[in-house]
């Protein structure tokens, strides 16, 4: 039993259903769960337990409704029509940009570019900032725990300009060492690109220190916060990163929308990414004048419904209170880690001191793929495979892992079911 706090969804004094035995709980998870229509179903005869949130989170009703409402009531193109619907759509679209700005603490909406997702945000920076600032012989520094989308765009850039990709190693817990990181920041390093929160290991990187050390050598830093914004408090001014990408579908919003934050000084100096409508002020066959920020980087009709859905997702996050949500998820994570450590067959992959939301593991005698099938049979959705982080898998010398990833609506009961499922798989195979 617990009572509401300013951070929770609960009015003060409201009594909770039996949720958590912790007196610190300030989070009505049953109320949160009720916001997610998809959770109310049975899969293979069992109540759905969704633990694949690092792949994509489920969507609260408010997000689904915001998208429906845009199409039902306000559908029109943005930034061009003088008619009422276009104005409404434009206002809603731009309001979402403001919500993104506010969520991550950017100075101005000029610094928020809508993109398709984290992947497109990183490619945008690689092909604009990268193509103009990185030369033959230069270096780009990433870490061992990157998602393929924070590796391949840099490899492509390196190939295009003749630069080199350098990689910060990680220890057996899945952490980088700041000393090693610092020693890799060299004369030729033009950019650091690092995960904020690793999707494969759950490691939270020491981004403040990483940025400070890079800036001492005038090296800009891009943070891949695809996993960050739904699990951490993100303040780009406080972190002082130069770029940050986020992904709508990983933070309770729709697929096909994300945002790139960039410091205005960088964005102003960068050439456009794609050419087309919306990113121009005037076009003649002799000369085209590019639009102001942020529109300079948003060629073509944007994902209007997606942006509006993302705005609703941010409203949802803020109504939960990111801090309350972090505490709740942390409790479930620690509970899960302990339960997994109690199984002698299980080896956790990723045991960083600073960790969030991800339980990555292997089970002796049970291949992750088989475990995934057996759990699915019990209505439990986890991810198995390399999690788009093959170099990370290689570092831990496993071909694949099983990964349960936690969101705000997961409970200790979900973990209990997961553990029961793992035990049943061990029974089948050994």
């Amino acid at each position, binding site marked *: 039993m617990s009572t509401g706090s300013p951070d929770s969804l609960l009015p003060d004094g409201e009594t909770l259903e039996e949720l958590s035995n912790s007196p610190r709980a300030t989070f009505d998870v049953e109320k949160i769960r009720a916001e997610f229509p998809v959770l109310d179903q049975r899969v293979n005869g069992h109540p759905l337990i969704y633990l694949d949130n690092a792949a994509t989170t489920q969507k609260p009703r408010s997000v689904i409704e915001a998208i429906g409402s845009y199409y039902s009531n306000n559908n029109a193109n943005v930034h061009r029509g003088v008619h009422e619907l276009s104005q409404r759509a434009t206002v809603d679209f731009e309001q979402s940009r403001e919500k993104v700005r506010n969520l991550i603490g950017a100075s101005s909406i000029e610094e928020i570019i809508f993109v398709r997702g984290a992947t497109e945000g990183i490619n945008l920076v690689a092909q604009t900032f990268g193509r103009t600032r990185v030369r033959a012989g230069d270096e780009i520094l990433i870490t061992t725990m990157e998602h393929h989308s924070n590796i391949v765009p840099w490899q492509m850039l390196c190939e295009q300009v003749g630069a080199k990709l350098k990689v910060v190693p990680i220890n057996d817990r899945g952490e980088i060492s700041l000393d090693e990181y610092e020693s890799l920041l060299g004369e030729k390093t033009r950019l650091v690109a690092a995960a904020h929160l690793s999707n494969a290991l759950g490691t939270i990187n020491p981004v403040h220190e990483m940025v400070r050390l890079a800036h001492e050598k005038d090296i800009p830093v891009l943070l891949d916060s695809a996993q960050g914004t739904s699990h951490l408090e993100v303040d780009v001014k406080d972190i002082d990163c130069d770029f940050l990408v986020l992904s709508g579908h990983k933070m309770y919003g729709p697929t096909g929308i994300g945002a790139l934050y960039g410091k205005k000084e960088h964005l102003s100096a960068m050439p456009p990414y794609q050419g087309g409508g919306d990113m121009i002020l005037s076009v003649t066959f002799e000369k085209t004048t590019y639009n102001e920020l942020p529109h300079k980087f948003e060629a073509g009709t944007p994902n209007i419904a997606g942006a509006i859905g993302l705005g609703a997702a941010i409203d949802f996050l803020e109504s939960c209170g990111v801090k309350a949500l972090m505490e709740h998820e942390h409790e479930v994570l620690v509970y899960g880690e302990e339960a997994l450590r109690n199984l002698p067959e299980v080896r956790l992959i990723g045991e960083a001191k600073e960790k969030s939301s991800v339980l990555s593991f292997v089970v002796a005698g049970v*291949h*992750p793929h*088989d475990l995934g099938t*057996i759990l699915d*049979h019990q209505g439990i959705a986890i991810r198995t495979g390399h999690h788009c982080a093959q170099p990370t898998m290689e570092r831990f010398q496993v*071909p694949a892992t099983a990964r349960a990833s936690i969101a705000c609506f997961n409970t200790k009961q979900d973990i209990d079911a997961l553990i029961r499922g793992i035990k049943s798989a061990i029974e089948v195979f050994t």
Partner: protein
Amino acid sequence: MTDLRDFYQEIILDHYRKPRNFSPLESATCQARGHNPLCGDRVEVYLHIDTGVVREISFQGAGCAISTASASLMTEAVKGMTLVEACALFDSFHDMMTGTGEASDPIDLGKLEALSGVRQIPIRVKCATLAWHTLKAALEESNNNTAASISTE
């Protein structure tokens, strides 16, 4: 999904725990390597072919229960077959997995029928067929004698 016991039949578990013909083959006349990047499964298939007959066959690798059992059962089934029979068996097995009904001359799959449940979980079909595609690559190698490598994803 069907009952899990249909999916992980005892024979599959047995071949997973104790894979048959699980070693490299010194006398191999051809071999091929298969890889499923999605789940990290790797398999190497070795063949000793003599006068058009598979005299010896073995495999090595790391994979899930389905891919390991499929490879193990495959080696048992293929050993002693002529190249033509082995190709026909590939077609029939492939057919069972994909349900395409393309095998011109379907043959009795015997124990391999235990893997038929895999068809119900499309993403796992690649686990079951990895060793078979690798076998096919090895057979093709025996025809043109170049190292073979295949990937199912």
